[in-house]
């Protein structure tokens, strides 16, 4: 197996406010191999975006946010790593955009409204590559072609408001790809787009990933998108990873009740006139990170809740065969029933 392109180890994030500090991300661990896509899934407020921002240290000043754990990129020699959370401010800026890049949810606001798009792309090249303006502009043109923008030469001098949402997202992708990063974090890159444009952007990302062999962390709440792009999926709830595994396995046989609930609440396409199953929902909402329930954070909303088992200690992320992990107090029962169903 090749060495991972990105490793997150026991990543924790706390926000400090006047009333005290609140931990919003707890012990998040994952690895992504080169060319692999890990989808990070969860409801709004589950901590997936905060996780992605924390990986690049984009969350804010040290007096407002504290990060712990490790975010590792391969170092200069084999078996050597660079910890993004440990390097100084100058070093992290040299890594951002060059080795780890990010694309964002809102293409409409992700670009500087008063700067031409060619300049915004070239800027990403110029400050890392130390190359001339002319070379950076040539690279920007190349990138616009690569992300499929029609008439790229004339678009170099366009302003963001002159482009459609899908085109702007392509520009954002071009900026992220400028230095051919090893890791690309995509924070709900298609959520704000029309369905047809969504499919185009997903196809583009997959193709670029094939070409560059990037590792991709794809954040989404849409299981349709997950099955489309991801190799593996990690489900987050209340700042913790609660289930992780290969996409096929998790989507077909979710073991953690939260994952099962999420999958059941995905609307299926029904033909008019035919009776469809009523849409399942998960009762309640994601808890306030400042007042997480005791034990498993999900137990107040869980259908499989057993008093005394689920509300004791926070269950560990248990390793299962097939590179699968779940965080559930009743994990043993699910594994047993899984095995017996296989035996049948």
């Amino acid at each position, binding site marked *: 197996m090749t060495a991972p392109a990105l490793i997150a180890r026991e990543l924790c994030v706390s926000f400090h406010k006047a009333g005290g500090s609140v931990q919003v991300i707890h012990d998040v661990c994952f690895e992504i191999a080169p060319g692999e896509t890990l989808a990070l899934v969860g409801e709004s407020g589950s901590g997936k975006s905060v996780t992605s921002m924390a990986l690049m240290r984009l969350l804010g000043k040290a007096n407002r946010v504290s990060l712990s754990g490790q975010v590792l990129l391969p170092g200069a020699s084999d078996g050597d790593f660079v910890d993004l959370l440990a390097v100084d401010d100058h070093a992290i800026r040299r890594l951002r*955009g060059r080795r780890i890049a990010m694309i964002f949810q809102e293409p409409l606001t992700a670009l500087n409204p008063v700067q031409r798009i060619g300049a915004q792309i070239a800027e990403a090249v110029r400050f890392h590559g130390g190359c001339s303006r002319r070379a950076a502009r040539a690279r920007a043109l190349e990138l616009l072609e690569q992300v499929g923008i029609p008439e790229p030469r004339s678009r170099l001098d366009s302003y963001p408001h002159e482009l459609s949402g899908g085109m702007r997202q392509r520009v954002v992708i071009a900026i992220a790809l400028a230095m051919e990063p090893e890791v690309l974090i995509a924070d709900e890159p298609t959520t704000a787009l029309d369905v047809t444009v969504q499919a185009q952007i997903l196809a583009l990302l997959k193709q670029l990933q094939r070409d560059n062999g990037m590792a991709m962390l794809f954040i989404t709440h849409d299981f349709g998108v997950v099955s489309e792009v991801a190799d593996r999926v990690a489900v987050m709830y209340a700042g913790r990873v609660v289930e992780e595994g290969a996409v096929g396995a998790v989507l077909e046989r979710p073991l953690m009740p939260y994952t099962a609930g999420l999958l059941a609440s995905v609307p299926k396409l029904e033909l008019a006139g035919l009776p469809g199953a009523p849409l399942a929902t998960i009762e309640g909402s994601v808890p306030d990170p400042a007042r997480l329930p005791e034990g498993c954070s999900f137990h107040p909303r869980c259908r499989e809740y057993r008093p005394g088992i689920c509300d004791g200690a926070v269950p560990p992320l248990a390793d299962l065969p097939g590179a699968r992990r779940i965080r559930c107090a009743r994990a043993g029962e699910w594994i047993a029933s899984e095995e017996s169903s296989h035996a049948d």
Partner: protein
Amino acid sequence: MGRYLIGRLGQSVVVLFLVSLIGFMILNLAPGGPLSQFALTPGMSQADIQRLAVQMGLDRPLIVQYIDWLGRLLRGDWGESFRDGRPVLAIIVEHLWATLLLMGTSMAISIVVGTLVGIAGAIRRYSIFDYLATVGAMVALSIPTFWFGLVAIYLFALKLAWLPAGNMITIGDGSVLDYLHHLVMPALVLALVNVAIWSRYMRSSTLDVLHQDFVRTARAKGLPRYRVLVHHIVRNALLPMITLGGLQLPTILGGALVAETVFTWPGMGRLFLDSIGYSDYPVVMGILMLSAIFVLLGNLLADLLVALADPRVRLA
């Protein structure tokens, strides 16, 4: 663009006409008037006053006076002062450059210092500097300029004797250094309020931009900190400041009534006040029209500059 400018200029002509009409009428409806100062002059008979009125054209109906004044103005004749018979335009120009010197200097200080203080306060929000700047701005905005002026005169002119207490030059001197020496105190006192205004606007404008998605994009590119600050944050935060500058432009011409009085600065503010006192209507009307022109020009200039600086804005 051409059509836009023609449209704006057309609007301006209408506004100027209304300003002139309303200004003229209000001025003449006020009690007193240019002849009242002669009423108590010994040896001045009613017939003498009547003769003066005929001589100055004040015996005619108000509307006729207005049309006559407007007609001359359109031909470039601003009229003569009631006080000393000199051409209004010459009197205004004399005072104008004194005001431009004072207000221009003070405005330049305010914009530069205010903008920098605002940016620093925003990026170091809730720091000691930010608190001091906020409190300082509140103090500067809530205490009247004349008080600051008097305190400054007391301290720097009377007690320390570093700076002159008023006037624009020392009689018999008039070198550049002498001008600057007289300029320092009124310019800084006047700047105090405007630094406060500019820093507050710039601070909130910068805070608005600071948390925009495109700033995060710029950071994620790995740009150096100054590059993010200058090209992405400040560049966008300055856009609303252009409009503020346009609104403040006329005050450069209007002068500062209070500050010019406190520092006996021979500018437009004092000319305006004196002219009202003497019921010197031609001069008052001249200043009024010039101020209106500056207000319109300031707004037009601001709109043009915004369109130039912000590609999303279209002039239509």
